[in-house]
C-alpha cells in the first residue's frame, strides 16, 4: 500500500505574527474599502433630523481614518517581521533576485497559470511557503499599499495636527493637486479588490490541486510537505521535540 499514496509531514510555515498580520489586513482592508466607497459616493439617507442631531457620515469617516492607522501600524510591523521572522516570512522571499527565484516564477507560470504539464515532477519546484510569483505579487501590492497610505495621509494632512500625516503633505503638489491625489486613492481601491479576487482564487486553486492545506495554513500555520523533503526520521523528531519543547511540561508533572 505504500506506493498508493505519499507520506506528508506537517511543517510550521506561518508563524502566529504572520497570521495575525494577515487577518488584520483582511479585516482592515475590508472596512476601508466599504467605508471608502461610502465616502466617495454617500447614500443620501435624508431624514427629518436636524444636522445637529446626526453625525453618521462623520462617523464613517472616523472609522475610515482609525482603520487606516491600524493598517499602517500593521504594515510597519510586517516590515519588521520580514527581518525577524522565520525563513518563510523573510524579505528575500518577496523579491526574486536570485536564479532560483526566477526559475520558480517561470515554473509557476508554466504549471499553475498556463496549466501546462509538469513533466519532471521535481519536489523542489513545489514551494513550501510562498511561491516566488505569489510572493512577488505581494511585494508589488505592498508598494501599492504604500502609495495608498501616502495619498491617504496627504489628503488628511491639512486637517491633522499630527506630524505623520503632515510629513506626506508634499504628495499633493507632487501629483498636482488634491483632485488627482484623491483620484489615485480611489482607483487603487479597485486595484486592491481585483487583487483580492485573484489572491483568494489562487489559494483555493492550490488547495484544490495540491491538497496540502494551502487555505487552512493561514489559520493553523501548518502546511504539509512530502516526507522525503525533511531530513530527519520520525523517531529523531519525536525524540528531539520531547527533549526540548515538552521539557517544561514534564518538569511540572513531576
Amino acid at each position, binding site marked *: *500500500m505504500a506506493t*498508493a*499514496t505519499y507520506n506528508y509531514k506537517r511543517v510550521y510555515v506561518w508563524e502566529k505574527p504572520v497570521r495575525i498580520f494577515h487577518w488584520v489586513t483582511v479585516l482592515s482592508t475590508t472596512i476601508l474599502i466599504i467605508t471608502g466607497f461610502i465616502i*466617495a*459616493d*454617500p447614500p*443620501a*439617507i*435624508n*431624514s427629518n*433630523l436636524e*444636522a*445637529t*442631531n*446626526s*453625525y*453618521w*457620515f*462623520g462617523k*464613517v*469617516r472616523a472609522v475610515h481614518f482609525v482603520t487606516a492607522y491600524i493598517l499602517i501600524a500593521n504594515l510597519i510591523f510586517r516590515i519588521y517581521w520580514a527581518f525577524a521572522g522565520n525563513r518563510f516570512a523573510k524579505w528575500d522571499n518577496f523579491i526574486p533576485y536570485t536564479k532560483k527565484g526566477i526559475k520558480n516564477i517561470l515554473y509557476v507560470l508554466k504549471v499553475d*497559470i498556463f*496549466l*501546462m504539464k509538469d513533466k519532471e515532477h521535481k519536489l523542489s519546484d513545489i514551494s513550501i511557503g510562498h511561491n516566488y510569483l505569489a510572493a512577488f505579487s505581494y511585494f508589488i501590492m505592498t508598494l501599492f499599499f504604500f502609495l495608498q497610505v501616502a495619498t491617504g495621509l496627504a489628503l488628511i494632512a*491639512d*486637517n491633522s495636527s499630527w506630524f505623520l500625516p503632515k510629513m506626506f*503633505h*508634499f504628495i*499633493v*503638489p507632487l501629483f*498636482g*493637486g*488634491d*483632485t488627482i491625489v*484623491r*483620484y489615485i486613492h*480611489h*482607483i487603487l*481601491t*479597485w*486595484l486592491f*479588490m*481585483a*487583487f483580492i*479576487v*485573484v489572491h483568494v*482564487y489562487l489559494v483555493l*486553486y492550490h488547495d*484544490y*490541486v495540491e*491538497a496540502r492545506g494551502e487555505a487552512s495554513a493561514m489559520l493553523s500555520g501548518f502546511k504539509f510537505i512530502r516526507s522525503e523533503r525533511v531530513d530527519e526520521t520520525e523517531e529523531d523528531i519525536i525524540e528531539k521535540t520531547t527533549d526540548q519543547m515538552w521539557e517544561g511540561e514534564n518538569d511540572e508533572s513531576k
Partner: protein
Amino acid sequence: MIKTNKKEETYYESILRKGYTRRDFMKFVTYMSAFMGLQSSMIGQVAKALETKKRLPVIWEHFQECTGCSESFIRSDHPLAADIILETVSLDYTDTLMAASGHNAEEAKQKSMKENYGNYILVVEGAIPTKDDGVYCTIAGRTAIEILKESAAGALAIITFGSCSAWGGIQAASPNPTGSVPVDAIIKDKPIIKVPGCPPISEVMTGVILHYATFGTIPELDAEGRPKQFYGKRVHDSCYRRPYFDAGLYAESFDSDEAKKGYCLYKLGCRGPVTYNACGFMEWNNGVSFPIKSGYPCIGCSSNEFWDNGPFTERLENVPGFGIENTADKIGKIVVGAAVAGAAVHAVATNVAKRKELKRNECLGEVNEKNIKE
C-alpha cells in the same frame, strides 16, 4: 492729472487725500489684519507701516484673460482695499483701467518701470501663449512673453492674479491650442506669489501688499506658491454647510427639497473638499455670498487644471485618456469583473488540464479510505 509727488506719498497720506477719515483708516487696518491672520496686537504695527512706508508702485499686465480678475478686484470688500492699490495701478499701468491709451500708456509704463526699477510689484493677469513664438497674444505689436520678461526684470515680486497666470487656466485646458503657460513657467528668478481663483478674492492681493509694507517680506507661501493665510484651508473646512456633510444630509438634484433646505452639495460634485481658497469666510461682493451659499457646488476654480476635471456637477471625474464617459468606477468594475471572469475560466481550465492528476489523487485517496483500520 498725474502728479509726480504722489509717488512719494505714504499709504496713509494717499488715503487722507482721497477723503477718508482716520477712523476709516483704522477700520480698514483692523479688517485687513484679521484677513491676514494677524493677532489684534499687530494692528498698531500695520497702521504704523502704512503711515510711514512709501506706497509700492504696481504694474498690472494683462495677457490671455477675460478681465474677470480686474472686475473682481474693483468690487473689493472694503473700498479702501481697492483704492489703496488701484490708485497706484491706474497711475502707473493697467491697460484696462488707466485713463491713458496707446503710445501714452506704453510710455507711462516704461517711465514708471525705469523710475522704480527693482522696487515695484508686478501683477500678472492671464496666461502666456508660447506656441508659434507667442503670436497668440500681442499688445502694441509685442508678444506677451516679451512684455512679461521685460516687466519682470525690474520687479520686486510678482503676483499672479487669477488661475490663468497661476496655473494656465482655461486657455491651458486640454488641448491647449496656443501652448499657454503660467508665469512661473517663464520667470524663474523672481518671488512669485500665486493668487489663483477664477476670479480670485481681491483682499488677497491687498493682503499680500500690506504684508510686504508691514514686514518687508512676502507672506509665507505653501508648497505650491500660494499665501498660506488665504489658501491654507479647504473650502470644505470653512463651509457653512459642513454640518450637513458630517450628518450625511445631501442634495441630489438642484430642484429638490433638500437643495432648497441648503443641504450639502457633495453629491452634486462640490469640489470644496479638494479646493484651497478663502471663499468660505471672506465671501464675495462685500461679503454677500459665495457659490455654495448661492446653492451651486464649488467647481474648484482655484485648483490647478480645474477645467479638465469635469463634469462639474458630478462626484467622479473622467479618467484622462479613456474617453469622456469613463469614470474610475466603470473602469474598476471592468478590472474586478475581468479578475472574476479570469478566475472562473482558470478554474474550468484547471479541471480539464489537470484531470489526470486530480483523478489519480482521488483514486489513491479512495484506496486509502478502503484501508482504514477499524
